């Protein structure tokens, strides 16, 4: 592991300790039936901090997020909430009150309005029989406005474009109003302006004390938004630290197998990655 995150005075809201993540193969025979995806994973999500998780396709980012949010049981180690509470001991509803997620590929099964879809984020707070309070309704409208969906709120979710639906899903996560947010590729399907708006939103949420983790493929977007980065590859964490510590030509070469030029941005000292494929010389 290269680098380590700088000291931060607050305790982590969510902490992975020695996680081994992967899938148990219950029905495929074999006594030691488990497919290990990542091992020796330890890190924390701190209030006020944005963590970007990067890594090649299939490296295990989604599996890590599933384990982190208690959806998938770790093969070893544990995820702790507030430093002491094993997340496995929480019910689905208790988890949804503390932690919201944006999944990588969600699809709406039947047509309901974007507003009704966003309103389902209140389920954990209201329960099976609860009715939606006035304050909650305002929160729904606020979240719709934040994601620039006010004009689309009465449209059916099945008629929205990929990017519009993505914003609906993020708005629903905002309605959940949890102090931990885990977003799997929140910028996928979004145009450049919406990508930047979403990242600005994540930074704003962090400033209000939330702990945020998101995965992304665009290394430069990751560097723009993240206080801290984790690169997962080949069954573990390859690098962990500030963007400038993680995004080096050596690390990128090792994980992605491509040559890259890393510079400082002209407008600030954040790193900027320019891939340098071999066929470029031939042109």
């Amino acid at each position: 592991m290269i680098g380590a995150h700088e000291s931060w005075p607050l305790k982590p809201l969510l902490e992975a300790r020695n996680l081994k993540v992967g899938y148990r193969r219950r029905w495929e025979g074999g006594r030691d039936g488990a497919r290990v995806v990542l091992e020796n994973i330890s890190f924390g999500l701190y209030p006020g901090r944005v963590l970007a998780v990067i890594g090649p396709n299939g490296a295990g980012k989604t599996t890590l997020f599933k384990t982190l949010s208690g959806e998938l049981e770790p093969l070893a180690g544990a995820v702790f909430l507030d430093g002491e509470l094993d997340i496995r001991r929480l019910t689905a509803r208790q988890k949804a009150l503390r932690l919201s997620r944006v999944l990588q590929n969600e699809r709406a099964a039947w047509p309901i309005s974007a507003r009704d879809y966003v309103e389902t984020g209140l389920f954990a707070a209201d329960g099976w029989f609860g009715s939606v309070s006035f304050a909650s309704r305002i929160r729904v409208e606020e979240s719709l406005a934040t994601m620039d969906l006010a004009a689309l709120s009465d449209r059916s979710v099945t008629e929205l474009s990929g990017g519009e639906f993505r914003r609906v899903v993020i708005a629903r996560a905002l309605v959940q109003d949890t102090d931990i947010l885990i977003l799997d590729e929140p910028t996928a399907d979004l145009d450049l302006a919406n990508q930047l708006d979403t990242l600005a939103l994540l930074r704003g949420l962090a400033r209000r004390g939330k702990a945020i983790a998101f995965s992304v493929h665009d290394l430069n977007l990751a560097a723009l938004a993240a206080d801290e980065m984790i690169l997962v590859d080949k069954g573990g964490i390859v690098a962990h630290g500030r963007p400038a510590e993680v995004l080096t030509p050596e690390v990128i070469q090792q994980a992605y197998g491509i040559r890259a030029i890393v510079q400082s941005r002209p407008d600030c000292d954040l790193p900027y990655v320019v891939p340098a494929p071999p066929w470029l010389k031939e042109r």
Partner: protein
Amino acid sequence: MKKILLGVGAAVIFLAALLASLAMGSVPLYPREIFAVLAERILGLHAGLADPYAMGVSSGASLGAVVSIVLGAKWGFSLLGSTEIFAFVGAILASLFVYAMAKINRRIAPTAALLLSGVAVGSFISAIVSLIVTLNDRDLHTVFFWMLGGFGGKGWGDVATILPVAIVAFSGALAIARPLDILGAGEEAAGTLGLDMKVLRRAAVGVAALAAAAAVSAGGVIGFVGLLGPHIARLAGGSLHRRLIPLSAAAGAILLMLADALARTVIAPVELPVGIVTALLGAPVFLRLLASPKEGRVL
């Protein structure tokens, strides 16, 4: 408060449906009409949750009814309503069996496993029904007409029997309306929103089995109303379950009353089993909807 309003709304729609059919003059208000409405109220309900054929409920009810008819004829017992009771028990047992089978391979039964298990168990039970009927061909006529479904000869007593089950099933379905809405995001997303799929699946299967068992045991196997009713309701009132469930019940009730009116008048004085009418008219309409690009997507 909202729930109460919705309940009142559903009751108003229900009464309006009755009055509308009365006004059309084709359906005189007999107990059997109310019975039809109640049976359909349930039939329409469960389709939003699970189809009785797919769940194996219909074949379970048929097996119960056939056993009752055949054994009743053989051993000479004919308790009042014994066929209905046997059918009800058969339907409940079949749906529990389907659910248990679907659960064997995984900790939680996914919807696909439930449907596949339902088809397999349903075919198996249907084969047993056919076998029993073949070996006891004296009762062929009785069994045949029971399976086609109908409301001929039903009275207030039948209404009283089905009413409590109808109320329980209807309330149960309304109670899970909100969790069902959340399921529209997919099971994984619903889980992240705090929905316990295990609890919801059990509740949904329970309500559906109860409703379908009551309807099928009382009215026989009446096809396509359960598919068409919710579909019409969805076109009229959208996909939110708190509206969809009462609207499906109302839509199904109206459809079944119309079908019953047709069944009794087309070749009067002979009365057709209502199941023939619903399937003959319902299936083409359903296929038409399926083929339409706009409505087909909502199915």
